[in-house]
């Protein structure tokens, strides 16, 4: 039996980006908030130490900061006709753990989704007709871009995002992204200085008529003090960013933007190395009573609370809802049930260009310093004569030259021996790569549920992922790969080598930690798990915040939208929910 603790106003599951934002916002109202985090406490000076953070083996290859499969694994299969097996090691995506969550070891690309992304179904239907999306299960978000604009702005100013506006109040700005939806003011900081590779890429893209611009970056171009009064430093381009914590206070994270203030509040408490097992519901299953968690010595505790906020990684939010019987699990045969529905990913492809006479110094890099072409993202271009919907950003963002992982050699090079060594040396400094990050649109057969066989260390079923790239997304990716070839040819390399996206999704090689859906938002409780304020349709004192809410994924990194959704939900709780606690903010 769990030991019962004194009640709190709010219990937050997970202290990453969304948990920290919600905790800050709700403690400001005077509420008594506890965040329960299954990983350790982590902070810059001790855990991302400048003396030894630049360690590729430890952090990038052995992944010291990530969730270990021994703690929680997931099973996967490509279709319902297969038997799912556990990913015994994470590969294709790498969930985080610990305070700061995946926001510790992200790259920092910080996008806004567009108006057309938030209204995917109605926009595409209106422009191309229902038939075009008949094979997909795309949906509207239930919110519009205009409703999200101020939330995006607050996240960007919290972080100190470095970028150039492309659309200020409807006026297209030189040097920014001309395809973005209108923003009300500039980014808080100017773009980062560009190394050689993205500079050359931008010249090539311009020469074939496209519109490159600096990728909006959470690696800071200048020192910055955010609205909470917390100071950050200029990025030093060390090349140890993704998979690493930033030792230099230059990458936005909960640690560098919120925790120094939040942790000093007497009405906030963080409990680390403590894993929430389930949300406890009342007898009718209509209201949450709190959570049960287990600490690292194996003792179970019951934490009663008036509200429960699921702020874990999106996949874990969906699993916790299933384990807690909040809502009904999606069934791909009938299309009924909402939890686990519309799991989506990211549809990526790449290209490498080999040169004789260039030196790109690939190690002078940061996670998000680069150039993007959005001419073929989302619905920025007319799909009328094409056989797909969606699109991809084309990104030249060389994140590192760390040599265990980064050793480009042309095809035909042996994998070992003296010929391998010579090719490795000859191409290390002189290779340029760029990639397409494509939308991932929902399909009926792609979903999450609980595995019938495999259990975690507490005996709870693992999450089961059933996913393959929809045909629509494969066609999209190949079409965008053709555009990448145009840019590559304009740069006149000695040789270019494509890495196109084909079926089936492989869980082994790293692709992207942009897993979305499973607890999606929307206007209809039959097809969404949470309403437009991320409040559970079924248990109204539970809010579920994260990329789990995306009805489908755009061709953009999700964190900007995740952060904005956190502010959006916080506003709804502060301004509406607390006036009448326990009531649904949207009538079903």
């Amino acid at each position: 039996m769990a030991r019962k603790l004194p009640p709190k106003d709010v219990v937050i599951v997970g202290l990453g980006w969304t948990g920290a934002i919600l905790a800050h916002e709700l403690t400001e109202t005077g509420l008594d908030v506890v965040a329960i985090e299954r990983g350790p406490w982590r902070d810059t000076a001790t855990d991302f130490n400048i003396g030894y953070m630049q360690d590729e083996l430890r952090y990038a290859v052995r992944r010291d900061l990530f969730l270990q499969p021994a703690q929680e694994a997931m099973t996967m299969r490509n279709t319902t006709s297969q038997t799912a097996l556990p990913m015994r090691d994470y590969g294709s995506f790498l969930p985080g753990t610990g305070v700061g969550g995946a926001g510790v070891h992200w790259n920092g690309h910080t996008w806004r989704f567009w108006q057309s992304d938030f209204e995917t179904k109605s926009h595409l239907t209106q422009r191309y007709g229902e038939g075009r999306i008949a094979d997909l299960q795309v949906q509207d978000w239930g919110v519009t871009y205009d409703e999200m604009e101020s939330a995006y702005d607050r996240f960007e100013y919290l972080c100190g995002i470095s970028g150039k506006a492309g659309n200020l109040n409807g006026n297209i700005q030189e040097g920014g992204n001309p395809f973005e939806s209108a923003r009300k003011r500039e980014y808080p900081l100017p773009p980062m200085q560009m190394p050689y590779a993205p500079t050359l890429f931008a010249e090539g893209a311009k020469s074939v008529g496209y519109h490159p611009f600096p990728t909006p970056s959470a690696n800071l171009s200048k020192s910055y003090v955010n609205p909470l009064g917390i100071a950050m430093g200029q990025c030093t381009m060390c090349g140890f960013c993704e998979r690493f914590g930033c030792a230099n206070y230059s990458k936005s994270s909960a640690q560098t933007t919120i925790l120094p203030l939040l942790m000093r509040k007497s009405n906030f408490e963080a409990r680390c190395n403590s894993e929430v097992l389930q949300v406890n519901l009342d007898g009718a299953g209509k209201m949450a009573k709190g959570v049960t968690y287990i600490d690292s010595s194996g003792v179970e505790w019951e934490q009663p609370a008036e509200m429960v906020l699921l702020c874990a990684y999106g996949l874990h939010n969906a699993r916790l809802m299933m384990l807690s019987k909040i809502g009904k699990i999606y069934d791909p045969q009938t299309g009924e049930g909402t939890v686990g529905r519309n799991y989506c990913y990211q549809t990526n492809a790449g290209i490498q260009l080999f040169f004789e006479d260039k030196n790109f110094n690939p190690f002078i890099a940061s996670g998000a310093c680069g150039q993007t072409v959005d001419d073929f993202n989302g619905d920025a271009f007319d799909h009328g004569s094409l056989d797909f919907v969606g699109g991809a950003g084309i990104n030249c963002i060389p994140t590192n030259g760390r040599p265990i992982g980064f050793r480009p050699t042309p095809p035909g090079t042996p994998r070992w021996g003296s010929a391998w060594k010579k090719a490795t040396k000859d191409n290390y400094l002189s290779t340029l790569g760029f990639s397409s990050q494509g939308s991932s649109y929902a399909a009926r057969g792609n979903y999450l549920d609980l595995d019938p066989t495999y259990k975690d260390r507490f005996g709870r079923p693992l999450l089961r992922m059933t996913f393959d790239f929809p045909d629509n997304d494969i066609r999209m990716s190949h079409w965008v790969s053709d555009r990448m070839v145009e840019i590559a040819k304009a740069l006149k390399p000695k040789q270019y080598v494509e890495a196109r996206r084909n079926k089936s999704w492989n869980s082994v090689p790293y692709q992207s930690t942009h897993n979305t859906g499973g607890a999606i938002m929307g206007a209809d409780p039959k097809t969404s798990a949470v309403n437009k304020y991320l409040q559970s349709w079924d248990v109204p004192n539970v809010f579920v915040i994260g990329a789990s809410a995306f009805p489908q994924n755009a061709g953009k990194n999700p964190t900007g939208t995740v952060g904005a959704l956190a502010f959006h939900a916080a506003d709804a709780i502060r301004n509406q929910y607390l006036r009448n606690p326990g009531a649904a903010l949207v009538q079903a």
Partner: protein
Amino acid sequence: MASTRRQFLTSAAALSFVTIASQTYAQTISGALPWHPFAGDPPQPSLAGWYFFKPEEARVIEAIVDRLIPADDLSVGGRDAGCAAFIDRQLAGSFGNSSRLYTQGPYAKGTPTQGYQGEATPAMRYRAGLAAIDAYLRKNKNDRGFAQLNAQEQDDFLKTLEAGKVDLGAIDGKTLFDLFLQNTMEGFFADPVYGGNRDMVSWKMIGFPGARYDYRDHITKHNQRYPLGPVSITGAPDWSHKG
């Protein structure tokens, strides 16, 4: 001052959380940012000797890494670069025993997209794999083990192993070769603190400056070689001669 006030609060008298900075104990934090002196966890430089390999296994691994990365005019060979010592340390730790991975059954043969589904840990795969290679070679190469073959014979054997054309019974030779190659390259290119990449030999070869953390002066010096040599987490050789 708030920054020196460290306060660890427990929510109830019944709580028995241990309030030290550790990954292994539950911890409740409120009212201040926690900080402890020397709470960092730097890597431990490896010492001499073999931790995992038996002497005869070590001789074979040294011979293998010396063919995967042969000595030539670009660098010393894998053995002198410390790749075998690196693999030894890795197999003696959490990589070798798969302690971080999901190791619950049932085990089943999956599709290629489902990844490695074997029950054997890397340490077990090395031990059994080296024994199987030795038995195979002694049967087919006049009772000689890998270390007794000449360089050409060693290369020929490794190529057939890589191609999946060596019958090692229950052991899949191709995936065993891939494991050897993966760990050898990790050792050659990782920070020297882990026993390989001795004297930062691979970093000097390709022009990687290592564990530096500030390139701001060079960002816009496009197409120009970076002027400084590499440093390791443990420093650089010329540092130790300065006061």
